[in-house]
């Protein structure tokens, strides 16, 4: 059996502000296999975003082990963390987080720019992923000229452009109406079917069904895990 893509052991995260300690994550154990679609659910403030930030190497755990792709994340230099974020991880945010000064195309190619990819290759790759999310006809637009659903599709394309090992999505449908939300979910489902590993935070029970597995967090602990009763697509 192959190693899991993500392996968390006794992960803890404590925030200290104004002498008050917030235990955002307490003793989290979690494995995510390659090709899995994991959804994380739980009440507000239970630590979902915190977990995702740590998975995405945007934040460091207070203690515990995080092994990504067989490599321990502890003790990495800022520069190496940036490189891993660039190559292994794709982020999708609730509020899209496109860069307003850059066009759709420039937004999508940005991770590739950071990778030092030649312009020509960037161009084909970016147009490919934009095609994939159905946004290639808007490549020259600025984000402010797009609807929310369109912006999130561009954000998905940007997350995909670098062909990351895992997509991390924090409430990707949270700012969208139901039809736009469904469209984005369809996109993620399709990606999963084609082999992408996805870890998604969502409140919406409609969308948790799309996942292979749903993890319930409560007060920083994993309280239950449920396997979706549905068929795996090989």
């Amino acid at each position, binding site marked *: 059996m192959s190693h899991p893509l993500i392996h968390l052991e006794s992960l803890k995260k404590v925030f200290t502000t104004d002498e008050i300690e917030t235990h955002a994550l307490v003793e989290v154990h979690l494995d995510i296999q390659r090709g899995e679609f994991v959804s994380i659910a739980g009440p507000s403030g239970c630590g979902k975003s915190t977990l995702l930030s740590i998975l995405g190497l945007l934040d460091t755990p207070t203690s515990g082990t995080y092994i990504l792709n067989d490599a321990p994340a502890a003790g990495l230099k800022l*520069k190496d963390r940036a*490189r891993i*974020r660039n190559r292994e991880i794709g982020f999708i945010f609730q*509020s899209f987080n496109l860069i*307003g000064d850059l066009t759709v195309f420039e937004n999508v190619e940005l991770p590739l720019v950071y990778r030092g990819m030649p312009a020509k290759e960037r161009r084909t790759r970016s147009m490919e992923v934009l095609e994939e999310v159905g946004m290639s006809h808007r490549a020259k637009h600025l984000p402010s000229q797009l609807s929310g659903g369109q*912006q999130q599709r561009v954000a998905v394309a*940007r997350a995909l452009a670098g062909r990351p090992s895992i997509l991390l999505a924090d409430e990707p449908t949270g700012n969208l109406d139901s039809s736009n939300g469904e469209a984005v979910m369809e996109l993620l489902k399709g990606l999963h079917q084609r082999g992408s590993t996805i870890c998604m935070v969502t409140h919406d029970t409609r969308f948790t069904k799309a996942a292979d597995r749903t993890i319930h967090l409560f007060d920083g602990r994993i309280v239950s895990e449920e396997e979706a009763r549905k068929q795996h697509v090989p």
Partner: protein
Amino acid sequence: MKALLHQFKASFRGLLRTPSFTLVALLTLALAIGANTAVFSVIKVVFLRPLPFAEPNRLVALYTSDLEKRLPGIRYIPASVPHYLDWKARQQSFSSMAASRPGAVTLTGQGDPERFSSMEVTGDWGSTLGLRAPLGRLIGPQDERDSPVTVLSHGFWKRRFGGDARIIGRSIVLNGQSTTVVGILPANVALKTLRGEADLLTPLVFTPAEIQGSRGIARMDVVARLKPNVNLAQARQSLEGIGRQLQADYPQTQGLGVDAVPLWEFHYGEQRPLLAMLLLAGTLILAIACANVANLMLSRATIRQRETALRRALGGSRLQSLAPFLADALIISLVGACLGLWLASLGSDLLRPLVPAELLSAYRLDLGVLAFSFAVSVLAALICGLAPAFLFTHRALSSQLQEGAKGTGHRPWIRSSLVSLQVALALALSVGFGAIWSSLQKLQRAPIGFSTERALTFPLRLNPRKHPVPDQRERIVQGIVEELSGLSGVQSAGTINLRPIVDNVPFGRSFSLPGREQLSATASLRMVSPRYFETMNIKVLKGRNFTFADYGPNPTSVVINKSLADLFWPGEDPIGKQFNHNWMDGTGGQMTIVGVVANVRLQGPAITANLETIYWPMYHFADAAATNVIVRTTGKPMALVSAVREILRRVDPDLPIPQMRTLEDHLESAMAGTRTQATLLGMMAAIALLLSGSGIFGVMAFSVAQRSREIGIRMALGGSPQRVARDITRQGMLLAALGLGVGILASVLLGRFLASLLYEVSPTDPFIIAVAVMVLGSVSLLASLVPARRAARLDPNQALRNE
């Protein structure tokens, strides 16, 4: 109206709530307004004050024009007596014409003898200028014949006689002669002469010898009043004709014409390029400051744009939504103007050396200056307040309100181009400063042809009434020189009628060679004692130095300088050559050249040309009964002062005790003007550098703060901190580079203003430009590195959380 007041109150509160913004904006404008106010106060007193004469616009100064450009560095050659009389007799353009010349008087009978500079004026001087004496009368035509009279300058009257009105009609002893004080000059009239400001007027009476005398360079200033129906151009044209006639009538005056300039130009024209440069520098600083504050306002506007857009969405007009920015700008610029006025009052002392002495009393921060300052600040407020307006008219409301367009949503080209503009202007200023500064350096190192260290110097003026015979005076001076030479601590002593650099007075005569009359020259004329060249360390290049045998009632040997030798005897040995001279009471004579000495900068270090010079073996200039002593010492020159005084007192107790200074001191004063210019421009360049540095810093820091979320996104996408910092630095440097490029062009264009102020430095010297580019580049780099570092230290998780 009420709404307006309300807006100002709100703005005021808002500004107090953002003290760092307010402080930076205030200081920026205060510096700019201060610099401009200070410069304007000088310009106002020099340029905007009418001369204190009746209808000053119709007054002109006449001067001998140097048609063949033989005397570079001397703008207006004073007139000789015969020339003046001929001009006056032949002209038809002027309703009246008068002459004046510098003189000196010794006042005795009131304690120690005192020496004062005087101005001798012809009888029609006062009426030509349209002057009236507030007390008594001025010198009139009758005074050219009658018993001696004098008119005191207002300052001298106050200073020396306590402003006592009873002085009118009383007698004082001037040059050993009882002289009646007939009047006092108005307080605002200064007696400007080549030798500085004079204290009193005496009648100018021409001797028959003068009337028949030389037509070369002399010492008379000529002033004339244009006839009502004649303009300056017409007058100049007719003067040109008179000049041609005179050259035809007197071939030895070949190359000397006559021309006229407005009297104001004659007195203050030289200040013009300097003040123009300062005005320009001030304007540039103001532009930089406005760009800076406009940028700050824009940053504020961007932060508040959603709020502003909301107001407009709720029905406010564009003007209403702009009112806060205009109010902010107005408050900042008016308070800035007050601070600026205060800075200007501090700075006005620095500018004092630029104001001609006689205008100093009128030099202050008065109502006109206040009005100027106010106007500048309102202008600044408009520019700063309108910049946000410009931005807003270009943006659709909806895009400002739209949720998705976080951060800026527009490409911030306005702010960027303002920063580039600042850098460009600062570069132009820095290049200007660099040029002036390096010109100063060159001046200080320029060879002047003699050495200044350990040399004491002072003027010596004998009383011609007490010692009427020139030969007798010659012996007195010789005695003094010999006694000085014998003094312990003295290496050598000599005399010269006009010291190089110190006595910046043109004095010369035209002469020609036997058989080569078509080649006449105007040479500077200097009377020197035997050991003058040794004392000054002037090299004898050919032939010999003067010996005692050369001195006597009718000297026939002369020493010339290298320039003259090169002009008349190129490739030949001039020693033993003879030529005619036509000076000295119009009598001619044959002179034999016995030596050639190295060139000396007679007119000051800034004047490169080495004027042709003839040295004449005489201890003193007989016409003026005066000379100047130079003492080369072995130790500190000033240590000898009392011993020198002792000798002078022993020789003639009536001799006024002159002021003694070192040659180094004199040279220092000669440089002072250039040094002041360099200091001023340096300060302005420093202000510009500071402002443009803070401009770049402001824009970059703001953009980092404003885009912290974007930076977080970039980091989440894999941008390393170094990479992010590098991108931001590069952005800043790109703006700077653009500015530097434009700045180089600007400095080439502005270089023209500078050229006339520079000595052997091109205003577009590539080295100076390179240094300025490097300095500004470094400042820009520093100004963008700090925000870039801040960006690199950003915690991406934190940045993404913050809405």
